[in-house]
């Protein structure tokens, strides 16, 4: 990949990352809108997903009876296994209209004074992509959080109860203890969101622009590769796309290594 | 020193006479300054002893004294543990087995484990001949004969002859252990190491296995680790007492339990600690 992207690297250098020009006809290529779209959609996804994931993990490991736990964990496992093309498909025809008619007007009416929620509502766009991504990474983060919570010995929880803690206070203590593991799980989920292709491609709007409003269409690194690679118009175009792939690989590599190290260190301490 | 103490009982002929006469030595196993370290911490240190052919030697001692570690070094089982290091010599028929291929050594030195561990995917029959089959022997008539012979020898034949093709896991614990013994002797070892073979079994199964051990003496050299002193007294000819990784005393079993030389041994065999 490094070799195959040499043409674009030679031509654009580091400016590639900071230029927001993307014009296959003029052979001007800059990756900034894609990097922006990828990072922002993934981070919003994480912000939506993290509290829900922790909630689910607590729900499964601390609150419900085994007869509920088993089928619900199974369903969440399935959620992680559904092909992303199906998420995307569902995203276009169900989620996007729902966002356009319900969620986005609601957000606009409440937070409309903020630049993020201004402008026209298309349904597809950055926010919708984030929501889809949030649904997709929740199983990852929650299963890691749940594993860590399960690993905390019962005696520790009993100690908290014995000191007069309420159930939530005991759980909060367990969560605080598990924070680096949860962080590791979140980073892993972030890595997954950054690399996610099909679902994002189908709902993000695919427009190489940087706009403050989250309702606007955007583009992600993986999506532009998916959309343009097979029909790229020239070697410079291909080379630029491969360079984006390289950046994507670099980012996910760093993020995943970080997550693995975090999780390794937690599991080592536990054992 | 306890090593001198052992000399008079155990060494009746020396290595030199062996070489001249060409007879097999009466010493089955001899360890010289055997030490085993796990993660740089010693589990056993400087163990030197001789084990006589066709005897039952019991190794006793409190938990964590290194008796299993010692036993497992005799068939080079520590090769499997990356953090284990073994020093010293282990002589079997006057050859240092630490310089040999562990696979070849283990064919001559069989092992029976604490918990019965038949292969769960195999039938009773397949378990009985597993050692041979895994080592490439596949002639069916031969295997059938060997399976029958060894199951009979392990006292299991009458109980299983009608259901040889059923899974080994369907047997009771005691039967499984006897199956494991049959499996071990099918490889025709000279020496059988037993690591608390009855500790997971009920008294009736235990007595069956003790009987086997007693009968096996004519054909095999047996080294048995046990935490049950009555068992050691019942079945062994010689007993070694280990404490904190060291060999404290090694003598004839009767003497060990009636008139031990060391205070520590006396305290242990009379139940004052351990």
């Amino acid at each position, binding site marked *: 990949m490094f070799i195959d992207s040499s043409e674009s690297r030679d031509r654009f250098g580091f400016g590639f990352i900071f230029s927001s020009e993307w014009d296959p006809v003029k052979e001007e290529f800059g990756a900034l809108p894609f990097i922006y779209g990828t990072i922002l959609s993934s981070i919003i996804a994480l912000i939506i997903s993290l509290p829900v994931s922790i909630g689910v993990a607590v729900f499964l490991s601390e609150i419900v009876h085994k007869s509920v736990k088993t089928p*619900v964990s199974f369903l969440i496992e399935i959620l992680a296994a559904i*092909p992303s093309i199906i998420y995307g498909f569902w995203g276009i025809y169900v989620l996007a209209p729902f966002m356009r008619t319900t969620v986005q007007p609601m957000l606009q009416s409440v937070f409309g004074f903020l630049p993020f929620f201004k402008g026209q509502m298309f349904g597809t766009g950055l926010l919708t992509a984030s929501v889809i991504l949030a649904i997709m990474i929740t199983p990852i983060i929650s299963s890691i959080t749940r594993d860590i919570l399960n690993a905390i010995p019962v005696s520790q929880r009993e100690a908290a109860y014995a000191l007069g803690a309420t159930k939530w206070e005991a759980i909060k203590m367990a969560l605080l203890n598990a924070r680096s593991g949860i962080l590791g799980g979140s980073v892993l989920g972030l890595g997954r969101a950054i690399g996610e292709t099909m679902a994002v491609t189908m709902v993000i709007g695919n427009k190489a622009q940087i706009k403050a409003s989250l309702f606007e269409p955007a583009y992600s690194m993986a999506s532009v590769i998916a959309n343009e690679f097979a029909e790229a118009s020239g070697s410079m175009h291909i080379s630029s796309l491969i360079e984006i792939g390289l950046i994507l690989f670099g980012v996910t590599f760093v993020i995943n290594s970080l997550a693995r190290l975090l999780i390794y260190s937690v599991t080592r301490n536990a054992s | 020193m306890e090593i001198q103490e052992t000399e008079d009982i155990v060494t009746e002929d020396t290595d030199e006479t062996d070489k001249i006469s060409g007879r097999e030595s009466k010493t089955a196993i001899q360890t010289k300054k055997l030490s085993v370290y796990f993660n740089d911490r010693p589990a056993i240190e400087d163990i030197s002893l001789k084990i006589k052919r066709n005897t039952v030697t019991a190794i006793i001692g409190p938990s964590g004294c290194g008796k299993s570690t010692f036993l497992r070094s005799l068939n080079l089982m520590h090769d*499997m543990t990356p953090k284990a290091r073994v020093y010293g010599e282990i002589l079997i028929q006057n050859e240092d087995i630490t310089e040999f291929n562990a696979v070849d050594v*283990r064919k001559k030195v069989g092992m029976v*484990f604490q918990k019965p561990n038949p292969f769960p*995917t195999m039938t009773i029959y397949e378990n009985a001949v597993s050692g041979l089959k895994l080592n490439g022997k596949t002639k069916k008539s031969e295997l059938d004969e060997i399976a029958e012979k060894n199951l009979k020898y392990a006292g299991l034949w009458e109980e299983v002859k009608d259901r040889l093709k059923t899974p080994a896991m369907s047997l009771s614990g005691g039967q499984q252990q006897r199956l494991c013994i049959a499996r071990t002797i099918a490889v025709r070892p000279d020496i059988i190491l037993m690591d608390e073979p009855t500790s997971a079994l009920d008294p009736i199964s235990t007595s069956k296995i003790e009987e086997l051990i007693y009968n096996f003496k004519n054909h095999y050299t047996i080294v048995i680790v046990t935490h049950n002193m009555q068992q050691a007294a019942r079945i062994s000819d010689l007993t070694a007492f280990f404490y904190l990784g060291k060999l404290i005393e090694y003598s004839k079993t009767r003497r060990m339990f009636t008139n031990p030389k060391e205070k520590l041994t006396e305290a242990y065999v009379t139940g004052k600690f351990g």
Partner: protein
Amino acid sequence: MKQNTLKLSKPVNLTRRKVTNSVMISLCVIAGVITILPLLYIFFYTTKSGISSLNPDFFTQLPKPVGETGGGMANAITGSLILIGIGGLIGIPVGVLSGIYISEYSGNITSTVVKFITDILSGVPSIVIGIFAYGIIVLPMQRFSALAGGFALGILMIPTVTKVTEEMLRLIPQSLREASLALGVSRWKTTLRIVLTTASSGIVTGILLATARAAGETAPLLFTSFGNSFWQTNIDEPMAALPLQIFAYAISPYEDWHRQAWAGAFVLIFLVFTVNLLVRYVTRKKY
């Protein structure tokens, strides 16, 4: 005589703490519901939209040109099977072998490195793996091909298969390995004939999981296998695949194609669901 009395003083803020407790617990329950909701929605929506368009034609007919209704995805289903077959030929042996290596020969540097590489590989976006396959196979051969697509799927399968193999082998008690070694059986024979055989049902279910996942992968096929609307079984040529066809149909403006895409989506979800259920059943029975 002194009398012992237990005096309970009311802790400060007890009411507030109790309220916080109930609120947070309820939030956790809500989180559980929120997570399950989209799943059930996707599941029922796909079933509803898919099952009505599912007919024998879907499995036996080729796609019809635009404007004509009917037709099916026979070529895409066959294509997916071929692609998964190629992927399996690459992913399963490599994955199982590295799983064995990590589990049975753990402790040395190489095995830690292999483990780290598989962990990283599992995080590499599938589209990047597609580019990799493109660079290795499509560029030198100068055309899109099923071989390249299968290769990409194979690489994607490796980390899942490795992980499952490793986990299943670790479940095999050490005593079983020792039993075999004590019979004078060499280490690799012990691994192959005893450890692997005993763990086989678990490994097979893991392979099924990896396969089901690969079957739904779209991104790496976009510019490797590329897709094809005709009947084509030569692995040296572009080949259709079920998820590719769903993608193409889903973003098309034709109502009839959407229906077919939902049918395809239903087939995929059904596959994922069945395999996961099967895996649950098999693993629950044993451990």
